[in-house]
C-alpha cells in the first residue's frame, strides 16, 4: 500500500498566527507510510474537491501527522473551525517527498511564508548540518522558528519589514551564508513562486542542486485526473506536463519549466 484514506482524529490544535493553524492528527497506519515533503489530501465536508496540505511533521511512534495550514478560502476556514476530538478524512500520504540523500552533508533549507511547513520534517535528520533561512512578511507572520531550532538546525529569519531578523530577502541570507563559507551542497526550498525562482537562480550561480516543492490546483491527488499539471523538461530538452501530485510536489529545480 502506498496511500489510503482514513478518518483521523485531531489530537492537538494551536493557532500560530492570525490565520495559520497547527493540528496534529492520529493518522494510524498512514503515518507509518509518510515521508518528508509528501502531502495529505483533506476532505472538507460538503466540498467536492479535497484540499492538499503538506506534511509538516511525522511521529511514527505516536502514529501522528502534523499539518500547518493557512486560512485562504472556504475550505481551510472550515478546517480551522474544527477542534480536538473532531475527525478529518485524509487521503495520504501522497506524492514524492524530498530526496534527502546523505544527511551528513551541509545543506540549506529556504522557506517562505506558508511554504515553511513542508521543510520542517526534511530538515530534522540534518541537525546542525542544515542552515535554514525562513522569510516572512513581518514578525507577526513568523512560524515554526523554534521547531527548526529544536531540530538543531541553524536558523535565520528574514522579514520584508525588518521587524525580525534580516530586513530583506531570503536570498540575501543565502549570499551571507556563502560569504561565511557555509558551503552547502544542496538547497531544499518551498515558498511563493518569485522566491523560488530567486532561490533557484542563486543555487545555480553557486552550482549546487536544488529541490523545490510546488503547488498546483488538484482534483484526484493521486495522478489519475491529470489536473495538477506542471511543465517539466525532459533529459533530451523536450517539454511535457508532469503532475504535482504524482511526480512531485518536490521536483529537481532544473526539471521545472516556469510558465507565465
Amino acid at each position, binding site marked *: 500500500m502506498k496511500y489510503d*484514506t482514513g478518518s483521523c482524529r485531531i489530537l492537538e490544535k494551536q493557532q500560530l498566527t492570525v490565520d495559520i493553524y497547527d493540528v496534529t492528527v492520529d493518522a494510524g497506519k498512514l503515518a507509518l507510510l509518510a515521508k518528508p515533503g509528501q502531502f495529505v489530501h483533506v476532505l472538507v465536508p460538503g466540498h467536492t474537491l479535497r484540499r492538499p496540505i503538506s506534511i509538516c511533521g511525522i511521529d511514527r511512534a505516536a502514529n501522528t501527522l502534523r499539518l500547518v495550514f493557512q486560512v485562504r478560502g472556504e475550505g481551510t476556514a472550515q478546517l480551522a473551525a474544527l477542534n480536538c476530538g473532531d475527525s478529518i478524512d485524509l487521503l495520504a500520504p501522497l506524492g514524492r517527498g524530498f530526496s534527502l540523500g546523505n544527511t551528513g552533508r551541509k545543506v540549506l533549507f529556504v522557506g517562505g511564508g506558508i511554504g515553511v511547513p513542508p521543510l520542517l520534517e526534511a530538515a530534522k535528520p540534518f541537525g546542525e548540518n542544515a542552515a535554514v533561512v525562513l522569510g516572512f512578511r513581518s514578525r507577526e507572520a513568523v512560524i515554526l522558528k523554534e521547531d527548526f531550532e529544536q531540530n538543531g538546525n541553524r536558523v535565520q529569519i528574514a522579514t520584508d519589514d525588518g521587524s525580525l531578523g534580516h530586513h530583506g530577502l531570503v536570498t540575501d541570507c543565502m549570499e551571507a551564508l556563502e560569504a561565511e563559507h557555509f558551503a552547502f551542497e544542496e538547497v531544499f526550498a518551498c515558498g511563493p513562486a518569485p522566491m523560488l525562482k530567486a532561490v533557484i537562480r542563486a543555487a545555480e550561480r553557486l552550482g549546487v542542486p536544488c529541490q523545490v516543492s510546488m503547488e498546483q490546483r488538484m482534483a*484526484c491527488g493521486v495522478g489519475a485526473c491529470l489536473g495538477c499539471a506542471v511543465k517539466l523538461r525532459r533529459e533530451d530538452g523536450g517539454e511535457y506536463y508532469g503532475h504535482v501530485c504524482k511526480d512531485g510536489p518536490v521536483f529537481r529545480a532544473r526539471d521545472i519549466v516556469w510558465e507565465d
Partner: protein
Amino acid sequence: MADLKVTIAGVPFQNPLIAASGTFGFGREYAEFYPLSTLGGISCKGITLAERPGNPPPRVTETPGGMLNAVGLQNPGVDHFIKEDLPWLQKQGTVVIANIAGNTPEDYCRMAEKLSYTAVDMVELNISCPNVKQGGVQFGTSCAGVEDITAQVRRFCKKPLMVKLSPNVSDIGEIAAAAESAGADAISMINTLTGMRIDIRTRRPVLRNNTGGLSGPALLPIAVRMVWQAAQRVKIPIVGMGGISKWEDAVELLLAGASALQIGTVFFTDPYAPVKILDGLNQYLDRSGFSSVSDLTGRVCPW
C-alpha cells in the same frame, strides 16, 4: 442479493458501475484502493491519434457542488495506449472501454480501426469534450454533426460503439436519436457542461483555458432529465452519468432510463465511492424486491 450484471451492446458487465473517462486515468492509481474488478468497467482517459500535451495549468477548480476541468485531453496517443496501458488493463478483470477524441472525422476513424483489432471491449466516441480548440464538442452539438461522425466511425469500428453526448444542447432527445440512427450501439451521457470561474483577486479566469467542463453533484438533475428525455427517443441502451455521488443518485439515473452508469468526480471526493454505491444499490434492490438491477432501468413513472 440481487443480480447486478448488465449487458450493454452485447458486452457483459459484472455490475453497472463504470469509471468515467478522464477521472480514473488508466486505472493504475485507483488499483491501490481495491481490485479494479470491483468496477463493472473502466472508460479510459480520452485518447487521441497522436500524443497530446494537454492545456497549461491551472486545469481544475471547484464550483458550488461541483468542479471545472480543462485538462485538454492530455494523453500518450492511441498507439502508446494499445502497447503500454491496454495489456495491463485487460488483466484487471473488468470491461475496458476506449474513449476516443479527434480533430477530424478521419482521426476518429483511424483510431476506431486500430482499436478494432485489440483487446478493448468497447469504443466510446467522445464528441463532447469542451476543452480542446479543435475536435470534440463541435461534432456533438448538432444532429447533423452527430449523425455524420457516428456513421463514419461506425464503418471502421468493429467493436461495440458507444457515443458520448454533450449536454450543451437545447434538445438532447433529437441528438440521441441521431446517434442511434447513425448506428451507435449505445449512448453514454452526459459529458460536462461548459462553465467558468473568475479569480476576483487577480481578475483572471481561474482556469488557464478560461472555460472548463462542469462535473460533480451540481450536474445530477441535468443528467437525470437528459437521460429521461433520451430514453424516450432511443431503443439502444443508455449509460448514464453526471454527478452521481451516492447510491440514491445511481438509482435515480437508472429509473430515468440508464442501463448502466459511469461515475467520475466522486472518485476525487471519495476513492471508495464505487464500493459504497454498489452496496447501497444492492440493499435498495433487495428492500424493494427487485431481483435484477436491470429491472430498474426506465422504471420511473412520470406524472
